[in-house]
């Protein structure tokens, strides 16, 4: 999920309507004076590491949920808090170089609702704390146990809201080499761990009304200072949960010259992980959908030959476009083929 690293600078940039901020973060692959870079083999320190790392440029708390309503419909819900730093320091003044951005969305089979929030650091309007664990922007909250095993997640926008209870059914898992996740052949990397074993219950509300929901959720935590290669133009990120209990995270980084870089993690029901080398995980677009004039691949063939995976991944709702200042596609998917299941798909760079 390092792919999301690239988005954050751009998102924040455009978000505050400073197109220069975008330029300022455009060279995310470059070394930046003062910021720390992830190092292989660094042990995590929980619960402190569930909180923010101001000495790294970017960071997020990224939750995606596949839900089934009492009405029998499939739903997806997203809750994301991004942090971006102009300088590797933090203070609680309004001049703090830390910035925050939130995205929230609900995808139904026929509709997609999204909202975004921005905040400067230091003001208290947004932030995160490792213990007692809380991540928030405005009234959007992710709060709960210090080991993230039990969370309450809320968000609302102009036309939707949700209130979800998350209980972890397995351990945290670590991507790459014990959480050190490489993002390109040049060696860009991030710290990356997940909690993919949540069971969810709660309520969502859309203009169609309030619905009780249950399902599964996947939380990504990632932070870095130089996550993307200079020529990488977009990515396609998959988090799939198969009916047999195995899970697969995989992403495809597209280069401007047509090259691709893939990586991923195979996760057993017990939480044992296998890091996937470049090229092991394969994804191929099968069908293109027109989303407000943009050509977005919403049906994919995903293959992982070493684990016997050859599945078709289809969007629950092909129009799950995040209509925020820096927009992208993000929504729930259904999996069929050699294995069946559910999952989430994020795609950027289809503007």
């Amino acid at each position, binding site marked *: 999920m390092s792919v999301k690293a690239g988005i954050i600078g751009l998102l924040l940039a455009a978000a505050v309507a*400073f197109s*220069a901020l975008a330029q300022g973060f455009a060279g995310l692959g470059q070394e930046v004076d003062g910021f720390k870079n992830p190092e292989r083999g660094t042990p995590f320190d929980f619960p402190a590491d569930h909180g923010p790392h101001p000495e790294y440029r970017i960071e997020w708390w990224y939750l995606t949920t596949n839900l089934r309503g009492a009405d029998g419909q499939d739903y997806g819900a997203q809750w994301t808090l991004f942090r971006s730093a102009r300088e590797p320091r933090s203070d609680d003044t*309004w001049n703090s170089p830390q910035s925050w951005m939130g995205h929230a969305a609900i995808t139904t089979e026929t509709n997609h609702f999204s909202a975004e929030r921005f*905040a*400067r650091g230091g003001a*208290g309007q947004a932030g995160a704390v490792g213990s007692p664990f809380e991540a928030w922007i405005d009234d959007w909250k992710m709060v709960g146990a210090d080991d993230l095993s039990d969370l309450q997640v809320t968000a609302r926008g*102009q036309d939707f809201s949700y209130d979800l209870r998350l209980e972890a059914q397995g351990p945290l898992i670590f991507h790459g080499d014990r959480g050190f996740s490489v993002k390109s052949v040049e060696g860009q990397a991030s710290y990356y761990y997940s909690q993919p074993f949540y069971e969810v219950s709660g309520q969502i509300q859309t203009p169609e009304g309030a619905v009780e929901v249950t399902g599964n959720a996947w939380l990504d935590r990632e932070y870095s200072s130089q996550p993307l290669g200079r020529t990488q133009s977009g990515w396609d990120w998959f988090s799939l949960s198969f009916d047999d209990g195995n899970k697969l995270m995989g992403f495809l980084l597209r280069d401007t010259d047509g090259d691709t870089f893939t990586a991923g993690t195979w996760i057993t029901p017990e939480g044992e992980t296998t890091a996937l080398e470049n090229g092991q995980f394969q994804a191929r677009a099968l069908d293109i959908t027109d989303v407000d004039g943009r050509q977005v691949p919403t049906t994919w063939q995903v293959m992982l030959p070493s684990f016997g995976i050859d599945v078709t991944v289809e969007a629950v709702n092909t129009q799950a476009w995040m209509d925020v200042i820096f927009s992208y596609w993000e929504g729930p998917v259904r999996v069929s083929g050699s294995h069946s299941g559910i999952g989430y798909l994020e795609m950027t760079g289809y503007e």
Partner: protein
Amino acid sequence: MMTRVVLQALLSHWWRRPLQLVTLLFGLALATGLWTGVQAINQEARSSYDAAAQALGQGDFDRLVAQGGALIQRQTFVDLRRAGWLVSPVIEGRYGRGEDRVTVIGLDPFTLPPSAGAPDLSDDNDLAQWFSDDGLIFVHPETQAALPDGLPRAIPNLSVAIGEVVTDVTTAWRLLEVDGFSHLIIAPQQPIGLTPLDDLIPSLERVRPDPAGDIAQLTRSFHLNLTAFGLLSFAVGLFIVHAAIGLAFEQRRGMFRTLRALGVSTRRLVAVLAGETLVLAILAGLLGIGLGYLVAATLLPGVAATLRGLYGAAVPGTLSLDPAWALSGFGIALAGAAAAAGQSLWQVAKLPILAPAKPRAWAMAMDRSQTRLALAALVLFAVTVVLLIFGSGLVAGFLLLGAFLLGAAFLLPWVLSRLLRLAAPLARGPITQWALADTRQQVPGLSLALMALLLALATNIGVGTMVSSFRLTFAGWLDQRLASEIYVTARDSQQSEDVRALLEGQADAVLPIRSTDIRLEGQPAQLFGVVDHPTYEQGWPLITALDTPWAQVASGQAVLINEQLWRRADLTLGSELALTADWALPIVGVYSDYGNPEGQAIVAQAELLQRFPDVSTLGYAARTDPAQVEALRAALIDIGVPAGNILNQAEVKTFSLDVFDRTFLVTAALNVLTLGVAAFAMLASLTTLAGLRLPQLAPLWAMGLTRRHLALVELARAVLFAAITWALAVPLGLILAWVLLAVVNVEAFGWRLPMFPFPFDWARLAIWAIVAALLAAALPAYRLARIAPAQLIKVFADER
């Protein structure tokens, strides 16, 4: 085909009389031009008010404000956000002093609603600097030209309102030395299921701001004033056009008859004539729009200075082309031509084929209409009286003026005729006798031009008297009000303490100046806190007061208010004025406060500071021996006060009077222009009449008067007309001045002024009127003096 022939015949008239054509076109163009110019200025001002309302960080949003104008705490903003409300903080305040004073607007780009317009930071350095401790500001290029000292790097940006500085909230806090927000913008779209604001934060008030409305309200009188001037100019111009078109129709009466006799139908004739008028109106309209642009472009910098000086409203000094006023100029040119030609067309439509040739019929009709006009004048005077007794408000004031002036103008021909008839027996020589008698006969032909002259002169005297009275009062008031010898603004609160210490040691008395912006009676206002010092009791001019007002104010138990607030809110002495939600004090006095558009109140300083602990504490006034002012200034500069922040009494007075003078520059310019139009009206009338007058002048020439002699008589006649008209304009102007001072000013500015006569100005105006008349008569007179005898002889031979 027939139409073309008819048109050709009709147009040949203009070909033979190019000057008359020029008169007509230029008259209409002038009228259109002045009107369009004034409209363009008004339009520009209005759109800049709108632009200010739409400018960066402003937007048309509901706001949350604290009661009594207090600042909103940072935590309040965070609490509201964490309750889900999409609000964005704004801090506003004034920075710098005098000419260069700007309004600093601090924004939070993170929470600003997208439609509020955030500044463009598409440069890495700009972005970094915006959030840095130094900060970055965005200003309109016009503001950038004269920014006060101590501001961060400025980036020019056309979407910032003039006189405003847009920056980050943190930068604004530092510049303004405050902490907190003036208001919170409420985004129009809010999430679902929020707790109502009243439950969350009852101390804040949700208001629907109308930033354009506030300024529009304040400046309404000014624009109405301009519009009135524009209408006046247009009316004066219409007189010209009416005269020129009437004459052209009259001169072609014979041709109309011939055409009718040759089988051209009345309908076709009228249609062709209407078409001709339309073409002329279009040509004149184009010319007029060009003229209007010139007028507006020339006057706009003055208007901008006026609006800024008088109302604090920022308007750019450069004009942008707007099709709206150009179209309105066209419309008014067409309407004017139609109004001027309507009567003549009607006459043509009713013209009998065999009507006898009556070259002077037009003038005779004018003669008959003298009585009708006089009766209309009486009606207008009656309207004036009714408005004076029952009318109220600014519009009524201007209507009153309009009815009165128009009435006086309508009465003019009748009065002139009577005066000349009365003067006839006084004539000694035959030439004087003839000249007087002839002059009386000229009244109908010249009456339109003379009415225009009367209006222009009366307006000049009236407005001039008003402005001069105002200036005299203002200067006297400044002398009283600016009692302190030196005024200092410290750079920051640290320096403020040093300044106070220094002044306390070296000056006779220190009078700290403390004020805050609040709302009184629903209007923006300032609240001043003063210390107990005899300076105020001795020098501060009060219009009306209860016993010992200053002692009562010093005790913290009373408030003084300015005249504007007093008149606008219709307050009475002794009644309570609510200063904040929980603070009301009885009014014990009213003071004059010229030049200030807003309401103002004065309370004890201790009370002010207790209730508004955040007010700026930088300003001081000090009493000292005038001989010590320079030494004190040097001492202040020694402790680091910028020289520009130290003003002595004389400088403040000069500055204030300078602002005053610039304020009325536009009025003066329009005065001159109106007089110019009136002079042109005379020129037009005299030129067109010159041709008609030849049969009357030729016999005199035949009887032994030289052409030069006749020309001199013509000049003398013009001077006589101007002199009589001026003499009538003086009382008229004085009445106008009285209405302006006692009715319009009170409505427009909120203060009433005493009236002073300025006979010297009137005398100067008399000279100008005579010069104008001489200039107007010069060309026809010159042509008469140089006319070929054959032309005169032809008069005797022509079969008429």
